[in-house]
């Protein structure tokens, strides 16, 4: 009989009781050590300067990014290596903000290094936590000349990081609706299609609490950025009704794009660039921003605390803001670039290109989803900014729907 079972089945001797007591004492001792919070005070200006004064160029940089977010030949990074002599390691290790932050938090909390010099995170709760907890190294703007010269004005005034103290945008994208034209014969224009019983069991929604909340609110005519707790509850009810009616097949992570291209779902919430990449692969998927509006998000580069090569990281960040480099990157990933000059560069390139390439480039230049006009931007909503207290109300409302 093994000791565990014996402990549960046999009468305890005095020694056992003592042993148990010792165990509880250890428990009490450990009970004293909680998980420490470490809300960071905003850095003082001279502290930032001091930090950067101490750092020097090391000749290498480790870039942690999302999958399918860099041309396969790593062109922009190769150019960087050639121009600066800095070797790079590129790792596609970020699949989801929450998961990435959940893994990074204990490491950074313990004061250890993640082993990455640049990480890319979407504006949202987790990025906010990174900044609040002091996990992001404040940037030295004197070393970001290309950013200052070439970044669009919009990308310098973002409410989640005013003045780009900690982050610079990598790229932006739009959350809208993707549909498989093999199964959906009508033109989808409205967000209401996602709630239409006609597509019962064929609708994909996103599992991420903020993404799904945004769409619930937009469907009700609420601007997520200005929403209140009452709005979240209303959106929750709408989304719950949608689920209970059997309209939703599944709440997806990144795997939604496979599901819609295979036809497991016919229409789904989707990220713009994913859909364009599938279109290029010849799959029958189409992307629309609903008439009621979609959301715009930005993936941001930041230097995590404890990074070994911050100077090299800053140089790479700035390098990606050279219009030619940004154009090469955007031509592949097809999201919204923070460098407006890219549009003209691609237009120039389209003039000299031939055949299919020419057509593809022209489509890109004219695409409102790669180069949104002011009118397009007006249709796009921003995420809800949540405090930690609000998050504890917000998350359960939507998770009780996606994880019933």
């Amino acid at each position, binding site marked *: 009989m093994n000791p565990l079972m014996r402990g549960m089945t046999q009468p305890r001797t005095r020694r056992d009781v003592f042993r148990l007591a010792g165990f509880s004492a250890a428990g009490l001792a450990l009970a004293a050590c909680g998980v420490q919070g470490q809300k960071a005070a905003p850095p003082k200006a001279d502290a930032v300067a001091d930090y950067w004064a101490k750092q020097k160029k090391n000749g290498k940089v480790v870039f942690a990014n999302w999958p399918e977010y860099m041309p396969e030949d790593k062109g922009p990074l190769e150019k960087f290596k050639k121009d600066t002599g800095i070797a790079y390691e590129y790792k596609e290790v970020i699949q989801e903000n929450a998961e990435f932050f959940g893994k990074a938090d204990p490491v950074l909390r313990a004061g250890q290094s993640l082993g990455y010099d640049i990480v890319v995170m979407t504006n949202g709760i987790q990025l906010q936590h990174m900044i609040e907890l002091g996990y992001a190294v404040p940037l030295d703007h004197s070393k970001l000349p290309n950013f200052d010269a070439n970044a669009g004005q919009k990308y310098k005034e973002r409410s989640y990081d005013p003045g780009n103290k900690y982050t610079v945008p990598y790229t932006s994208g739009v959350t809208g609706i993707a549909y498989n034209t093999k199964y959906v014969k009508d033109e989808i224009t409205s967000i209401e299609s996602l709630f239409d019983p006609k597509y019962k069991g064929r609708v994909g929604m996103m599992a991420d609490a903020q993404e799904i909340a945004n769409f619930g609110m937009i469907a009700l005519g609420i601007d997520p950025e200005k929403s209140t707790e009452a709005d979240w509850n209303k959106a929750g009810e709408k989304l719950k009704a949608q689920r209970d009616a059997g309209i939703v097949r599944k709440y997806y992570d990144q*795997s939604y794009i496979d599901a819609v291209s295979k036809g497991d779902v016919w229409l789904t919430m989707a990220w713009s660039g994913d859909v364009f990449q599938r279109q290029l692969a010849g799959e029958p998927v189409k992307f629309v921003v609903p008439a009621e509006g979609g959301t715009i998000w930005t993936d941001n580069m930041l230097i995590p605390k404890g990074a070994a090569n911050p100077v090299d990281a800053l140089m790479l960040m700035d390098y990606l803001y050279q219009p030619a480099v940004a154009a090469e990157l955007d031509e592949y990933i097809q999201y919204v670039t923070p460098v407006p000059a890219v549009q003209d560069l691609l237009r120039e390139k389209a003039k000299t290109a031939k055949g299919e390439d020419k057509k593809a480039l022209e489509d890109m230049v004219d695409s409102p989803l790669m180069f949104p006009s002011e009118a397009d931007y007006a249709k796009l909503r921003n995420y809800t900014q949540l405090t930690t207290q609000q998050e504890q109300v917000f998350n359960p409302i939507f998770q009780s729907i996606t994880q019933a």
Partner: protein
Amino acid sequence: MRRLTPYLLALPSWMWLAIFLVVPMVAMASVSLQTGNAIDGFAMTFSFSNYTEAIGRYSTQLARSLLYGALATVAMLVIGYPVAYFIAFKAGARKSMYLFLLLLPFFVSFVLRTISWNFLLADNGILFGTLKGWGLLPADFHVLATTVAVVGGLTYNFLPFMILPIYVALERVDPRVVEAAQDLYATRAAAFRRVVLPLSLPGVFAGVLMTFVPATADPINAAILGGTSNTMIGNIIQTAYLTNLDYPTASALSFTLMAVLLVGIFIYARALGTENVLEAAAR
């Protein structure tokens, strides 16, 4: 000195248990009673309501996990026992090849194996697309995003852990005792029921233990193969831990799950009877 030797020899394993089992468990027990948030920190408040709240809120998922775990375990037993029996008694010289084939899928990662079911079982994929094309299935037939897919995935993923211990137990059965039973006028069915089956029960016990526990706690199959109402407790714990950074709720749920499983196993051990069973399981 000599008296101390056995204890000293056992020291590494006790250290192992202390460092990798006791310390984390005590830490987790501690966190499960704290309140706070990840930004401002957590403080010990001996908040036992963490447990009542978590159990109250997630009782559906907890019950569902136990149900799925049990269904998958029964399915594995039904499939696994005959397979183990076949390999032990009928496979002859090919025994090791069958065992190797059984383990072959394990050279591929758990998650990838599960995702590949997504391709195989896609609504219009290789299998169902073809059958639908022949008009053998209605157009809206699907398996993905249903309970069947999740339980099936669990069954598939943990099956070898059921087969191997049963195989080991059956392998040890001396063919002469079966012969003896037949000499005593037992029919083949009776010999199986009264000799082979009881002798293989320790393997069944170990198999059930090794499959029911991980299957109940598994978050992967529900996440990849499930639909809107297949969330299991493992998914809830994962979200609480990684997304919400709600360490107390995650810890409280983990402990609850562990307690429920331990009680279940204890009852099961009692029901199955003997100390021999436990000894065999420990072997």
